């Protein structure tokens, strides 16, 4: 859906490059949703086939523990089965949270579980939350032409580098997305015409305000799927704060033959590729005679907001907290993607920074890239960091011209110098 939004922007760019597109240009949600849903179904099918090919029995049942070696499964038709095994892996993930204290939240609001399956356009939407889920959804909804508002309780992208997070939301705000900062919803009501009235409180002033929307999308966090598993029956311990399952470096829970991987495990990045790799390595350890453990440090990721944000390693705040301001050097640059020039696009938030140790050879601690194709740019540099890259080595890498990624290899202005970090020239 982010791609649909990007294509919308490209249609606008196209006329600068000579393409004579007649306006108006409309977006048909139904058509997009159908195409996306069909593709997802083909993936579902592909997974079923793969399981079959590898002789893995697939049971569509809701499972919970009876004891540490036995699981009880219930089908949709309410039939019960008992299964026992030597090893059990829990990978039940999480589900979106509803703000249960907000009247009408459950009846009238939807979550990311629903948005991708909607057959009709969500229309004018209020997205509640400051997570990457909230911002990414708000981003593509606005990108396909819908009136979109984001309501934030406090800061956007908690846990991410805050300077970068500000630039992300700044870009969204300057491209038509409204932000209600420092506000919390108190009530959702359905109006006679079917639309939703949301009432909220501005935390700073204490004032109440309200607005009318077609859709309210809750993106305020996800809860791990552990409550219905009857983990106590197996003796598997969870964190009292997060409700996630406690695991060790071997992905084992408090019960040696029961493992947990993915979003349901405590202390793990909630990312698909880490879950996949953890699972692969676990299988290799259990049955392949390997002893390789999963490395969870320096995991790269990308937030697919309208202007994408790719990062790996430490945020500037984390680096300073860990090493002290005096021992950290940050090199940065504001750059303009070549494709934006002729398209007359605003590149004010296109920004890169690397956080390194000040001491030579200046080991790279973190890379932050805000711009188009951020995921593609970041992946290779994540490899660099894995290889222990230093700023010195980065500077010896010749750039590929013309790309956005080359600007990473050309960073030379430090924050400390106070000099203007705007890239000039070709």
């Amino acid at each position: 859906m982010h791609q649909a939004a990007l294509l919308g922007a490209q249609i606008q760019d196209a006329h600068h490059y000579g393409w004579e597109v007649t306006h108006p240009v409309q977006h048909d949600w139904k058509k997009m949703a159908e195409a996306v849903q069909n593709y997802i179904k083909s993936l579902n099918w592909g997974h079923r086939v793969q399981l079959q090919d590898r002789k893995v029995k697939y049971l569509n049942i809701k499972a919970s523990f009876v004891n540490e070696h036995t699981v009880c499964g219930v089908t949709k038709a309410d039939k019960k089965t008992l299964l026992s095994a030597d090893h059990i892996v829990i990978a039940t993930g999480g589900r979106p949270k509803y703000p249960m204290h907000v009247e009408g939240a459950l009846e009238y609001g939807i979550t990311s579980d629903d948005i991708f399956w909607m057959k009709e356009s969500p229309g004018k939407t209020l997205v509640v939350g400051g997570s990457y889920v909230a911002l990414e959804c708000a981003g593509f909804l606005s990108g396909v032409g819908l009136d979109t508002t984001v309501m934030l309780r406090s800061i956007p992208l908690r846990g991410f580098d805050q300077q970068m997070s500000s630039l992300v939301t700044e870009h969204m705000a300057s491209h038509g997305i409204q932000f209600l900062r420092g506000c919390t919803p108190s009530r959702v009501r359905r109006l006679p015409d079917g639309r939703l009235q949301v009432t909220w409180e501005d935390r700073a002033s204490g004032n109440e305000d309200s607005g009318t929307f077609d859709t309210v999308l809750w993106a305020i966090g996800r809860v791990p799927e552990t409550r219905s598993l009857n983990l106590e029956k197996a003796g598997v311990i969870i964190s009292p704060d997060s409700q996630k399952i406690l695991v060790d470096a071997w992905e084992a829970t408090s019960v040696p033959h029961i493992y947990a991987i993915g979003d349901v495990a405590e202390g793990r990045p909630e990312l698909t590729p880490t879950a996949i790799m953890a699972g692969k390595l676990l299988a290799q350890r259990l049955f392949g005679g390997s002893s390789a453990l999963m490395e969870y440090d320096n995991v790269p990721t990308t937030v697919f907001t309208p202007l994408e944000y790719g990062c790996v390693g430490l945020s500037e705040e984390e680096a300073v907290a860990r090493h002290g301001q005096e021992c950290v050097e940050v090199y940065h640059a504001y750059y303009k993607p070549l494709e934006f020039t002729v398209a007359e696009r605003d590149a004010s938030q296109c920004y890169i920074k690397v956080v390194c140790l000040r001491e030579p050879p200046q080991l790279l601690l973190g890379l932050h890239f805000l711009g188009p194709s951020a995921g593609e740019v970041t992946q290779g540099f994540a490899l660099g960091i894995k290889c222990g890259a230093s700023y010195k080595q980065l500077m010896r890498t010749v750039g590929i011209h013309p790309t956005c990624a080359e600007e990473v290899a050309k960073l030379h202005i430090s924050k400390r110098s106070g000099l203007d970090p705007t890239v000039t020239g070709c």
Partner: protein
Amino acid sequence: MVLDFVIPSPHGTTWGLGGTCVNVGCIPKKLMHQAALLGQALHDSRKFGWEYNQQVKHNWETMIEAIQNYIGSLNWGYRVSMRENAVAYINSYGEFVEHHKVKATNRKGQATYYTAAKFVIATGERPRYLGIQGDKEYCITSDDLFSLPYCPGKTLVVGASYVALECAGFLAGIGLDVSVMVRSILLRGFDQEMAEKVGSYMEEHGVKFLRKFVPVMIQQLESGSPGKLKVVAKSTDGPETIEGIYNTVLLAIGRDSCTRKIGLEKISVKINEKNGKIPVNDVEQTNVPYVYAIGDILEGKPELTPVAIQAGKLLARRLFGGRIEKCDYINVPTTIFTPLEYGCCGLSEEKAIDVYGKENLEVYHTLFWPLEWTVAERDNNTCYAKIICNRPDNDRVVGFHILGPNAGEVTQGFAAAMKCGLTKQLLDDTIGIHPTCGEIFTSLEITKSSGLAITQKGC
């Protein structure tokens, strides 16, 4: 002081400050490539729900104007930059007359003489002509294409260089009827498996290839903007002769160094007589100690803008900044911006076999389907990734190749990683960013030697 002068092309084209890249190279090329990509995006967008009038035409003049305006702003930017750094910019043709002395001739033919303690030659190259009847009068080159005031129409591109393929690619992408005439192989010097894949994709998308032919005569049938040209070509593989009629013939058969008419013989700077290139040592010094050279004219160095810029920067720092750092020419990454982009760093498979021996190499490869192409119903099992590893050296990655969208963006970071000694293990230990194309390199499993199929499945 900078002496910069552009000798007009046979068609009279000239340009401002900034060299080939800014004016008649990377920059306009990438912008035209972007125009072509946007054409494709317009097509894809319908599958993602975007609706607008089916008939979308491309207007050449609009594109040229926009691109030339941007180039103009870069020329201006460089003029300002020179001024701000107190560098005198003289728009004159420079040539050595004796040691430490150059003659600078301006557009009007007036000559001025300058002396200096040190000189840097960065005169670059210009496109080569065929040396056949009608070539200079009727054919254009990349020097002319990027500011051509009229749409080139049905075009024959002669050559198999990346210049030829990139130009053919974007011309086809904006809707023109394009043919490419190739004497022998595509992209000489590049990994040939990748080169063939680049060519196949272009062919599948409407570019016609005339392989193993060379033009022998170009005749003008009609003058105009564009006119009509008749091209006669002979096969390199037999007696066959073919003829074709085109609006434009674009020659992209190579570039020649601008080193033969700048008085180098007067000060005994040695050049390679065969190709005009200047051999330098590892501090970019010619055989004459006070004369340095950088950029495309260097013998044995990659002909790339960032290499030239890096070499120049470091040279300046060594000469005047008390620094000692040398330009690192190893594992310089590059990207070819053909319709399906090709990014690479390190050795081609052929070169790697030469250098390390086939038994010491392991090649991992896979086809992949970018997520954005799925809903757009674009070719699956076309994009391709491969790495070449040197087994005895910890499976060190000595060659990196990707054929797919945003190839440049993907390749850059991996080039930095190769600079830091990237190995297969490190790739395997790194988590992929999902969903991207680049992540494919963190999960390469199938080797060429296994012979296993590399077609796609799963998310």
